[in-house]
């Protein structure tokens, strides 16, 4: 199953409760919320969606698995569209 990982060409900086990310192919900077930044962070190493959900469940032990799965689904699509996550061939 192909995995997803952070685009290594991305530059970012944590700032208060946001993460500022420079999009890889433009000069545009987006502000990720702590939730989307956590989802993005889960792909620091190459992972499948299921592995990312598992990692986030371990990280946020008080979170419900169903909620985490839903957030991963929502944010992965957006992050991929922005070019911040890339699929392995």
């Amino acid at each position, binding site marked *: 199953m192909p995995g997803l990982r952070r685009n290594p060409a991305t530059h970012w900086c944590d*700032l208060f409760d*946001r993460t*500022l990310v420079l999009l890889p192919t433009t000069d545009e*900077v987006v502000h990720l919320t702590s939730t989307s930044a956590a989802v993005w962070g889960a792909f620091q190493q190459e992972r499948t969606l299921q592995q990312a959900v598992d990692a986030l469940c371990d990280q946020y032990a008080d979170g419900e698995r169903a909620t985490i799965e839903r957030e991963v689904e929502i944010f992965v699509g957006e992050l991929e569209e922005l070019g911040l996550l890339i699929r392995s061939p």
Partner: protein
Amino acid sequence: MITDSFAGPVARQVTVTAARFGLPGSPPDGPAGPVDDADWPLVTQTVQRHRLTGLFAAAVEAGWIPTTSRQRRDVYEFHAGMVATCLRLERDAVRATAELRLAGIDALVLKGPAFARLEYPHQRLRVFGDVDLLVRTVDWQASVSVLESIGYVRAQPTVGTAFERRFGKGATLRNHAGRQLDLHRTLAAGPLGLGIEERDLWAETSSFRINAHELRSLDPTGRFLHACYHAALGKHRMQLSPLRDLAGMATNPERPLNVAEALGRASSWQGEAVVARAVVAAWHLFDLPTSELADWASSYRPSASDERILRTYTDPELGFASHAVLSVRRVPGVRNKAAYAFRAAFPEHGFDAGRHSSRPRRWITALRELRRLARDRAS
């Protein structure tokens, strides 16, 4: 003494409090309550002008600078804007060094991006407005060509290609987005730059990472000396950011500065007066606890020659001509001296655009400067 040039007492108090954040000793007396709305625009302009938005935001977070909720939002917004600029500049630095490496050229990252990663607990605390890269003299021309091949153009015509390569400090380039990259051959222009030993800059280096990319910078002593040169030399308003850089480096308990090595290298570069001037200014402004370095700086007495050289960097009425006269003395060999003097008097076509209306005007300005320099010497 470096002159203090804040626009008002409130802006001064807040800006110095922000710059002081993270340094040893007791916190300064910050404002008792939120800054008055009438003073707020000047405060934020001053903080941004001194490139201290990161430390300002941290000082606000820590409660050193009380703010209203609207002011807090402002702090986030303007600091986020600066951080966005820094991210773009970091990408510029990564791309430029990668292209230079592909051409077989080593480059060291100076100041902003390197200081942010190597000298501060978090990159967001140190913002910057351009990229500075150092290359070896032997790689100078090839480096300019590589950068031009990826879209950089010179911000100003060169005084002379050979002059720039042999005696110059560097060149300013801009990319398609208007962002600036200063390509350096050494750390200062004029006589002080000619005193800097190139082999010292490259003998030892420090590595740091910008995300997945490994880059190199000067060693800790080199970074400290560069911060001193940046802080002490300039005709414009005093900048707090380089003073904060050097104060942080000189007082870092986790990696103490090797004072003997720093002063030894400054001495061999004939730059002790520069270091003393910068250290005295930083200790005075930030009210830092006494130290071996501060004691040395406050008791250091520059020679008349050192004072004259320093004045050519700080006196608004002195400039290229006085630099040239004092530089020629440091250039070795009669042929080299002649080459230096010739190009200083007859720069390449276009160099004077925006500086002097004509070549005779350049010479008149030079004569005025030299008369001033001679008067200073006589007195």
